[in-house]
């Protein structure tokens, strides 16, 4: 089979897009963290036990709060190209189309559930002069929406692990499959944030916010790196075929 020059050019362009999708993984971390730092969500987020006055003061803190949250909402959206690229790479070698499809749907849902809480936070900061209780309500809503709807992401992890560990010629190394199982596990108990206002199981706690933040960042960097690497490898292969 010989490919025409234009077909080869199209394939190479597609692989360059794939590499960019890979870069979106670490970019998600960088841009979202930058946004949260600007807004003051990081290094120390509002607590589930924060007083009404503290919550109101945070959102009335100045224009850097909505700006930082806007930047973070762009950051968390950068996961979308990565999710699409992972489905593409799974589908490339795997003749089980459902795995790639479930990954895509679960990943898209996760992305939506990360963007929405940013919008709710922005809404909370939109009218600092509204009754304080409403700001507290919006803040609770934003944080619980942000951390507790973990099931779509856990499904995504399980599907990726299945695709990697049960296919002999998966693009991703096998340890990435095990990594997905572990990252999924670190998210399972985030639902505890519904029940606790203080301690390590509250939304701002070590085992909820900080553990999930760490494992999600590791996941984004590792998956992004391997998507990019797969793109580079495929590009080299297509050049050698010439």
């Amino acid at each position, binding site marked *: 089979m010989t490919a025409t020059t234009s077909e080869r050019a199209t394939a190479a362009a597609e692989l360059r897009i794939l590499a960019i999708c890979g870069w979106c993984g670490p970019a998600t971390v960088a841009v979202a963290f930058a946004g949260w730092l600007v807004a003051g969500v990081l290094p120390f987020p509002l607590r589930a036990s924060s007083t009404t006055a503290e919550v109101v003061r945070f959102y009335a803190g100045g224009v850097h709060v909505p700006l930082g949250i806007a930047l973070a909402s762009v950051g968390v959206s950068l996961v979308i190209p990565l999710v699409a690229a992972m489905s593409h790479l799974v589908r490339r070698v795997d003749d089980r189309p459902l795995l790639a499809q479930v990954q895509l749907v679960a990943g898209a849902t996760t992305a939506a559930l990360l963007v929405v809480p940013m919008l709710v936070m922005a809404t909370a900061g939109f009218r600092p002069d509204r009754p304080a209780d409403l700001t507290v309500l919006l803040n609770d809503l934003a944080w619980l929406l942000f951390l507790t709807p973990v099931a779509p992401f856990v499904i995504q992890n399980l599907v990726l692990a299945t695709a990697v560990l049960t296919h002999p010629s998966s693009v991703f190394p096998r*340890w990435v499959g095990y990594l997905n*199982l*572990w990252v999924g596990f670190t998210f399972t108990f985030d639902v*505890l944030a519904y*029940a*606790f206002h203080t*301690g390590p*199981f509250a939304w701002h706690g070590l*085992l909820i916010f900080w553990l999930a933040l760490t494992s999600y960042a590791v996941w984004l960097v590792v998956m992004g790196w391997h998507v990019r690497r797969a793109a580079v490898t495929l590009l080299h292969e297509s050049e050698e075929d010439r």
Partner: protein
Amino acid sequence: MTTLLPPGRPTAREPRRTADSVEGGMWAFLLLDMTVFALFFGAYAWDLRSHRPAFTAEAASLSSVVGGVNTLVLLGSSYLVVRAVHAHRSGDVAGTRRALTGVLACAAVFVGLKCVEYVHAIESGHGLTSSPFFSYYFVLTGLHLFHVGIGSVLLLTWRRSLAHGRRPASERWAESAGAYWHMVDLLWLVIFTLLYVGSHR
């Protein structure tokens, strides 16, 4: 690569252990999983320092006999998993199934006793957020119970693969499921000590 012999065939092969039967990725997964649990243990020990009298008073309401029996049940199940892996490696399908049935029975006893304990604790007015000690009690044992569930599904899948006309699970798969079950066991050893022994007055 070693594979399980077809069922029914008498085997002359000695069971053997291959250095790469469980992959590095699986070991790393187990270690990281245990590390997450270690963070829970650390949080517990940290709060034990600041609420020692309350913790010891409430720990006394747990039955260390039930906890101790559950420990013995899990230790027995772990031993049976060793038997199952050994039988699987030597191609002894009937022996593997028997041992796995035993493990699953132990898991059922463990879950049953845990439920009895939960009912007792809840009837005595304790709950997930009733006090720091019982928060840890329900979270630690609940998360562990979740692992017992996952482990049971893995063992059940392994056992089903040995049914007539199915492709038996690979040796690596069987050993990985076994290693997962041992982790469930050893995590309980620490949880049992922290909640039932170490906090005792």
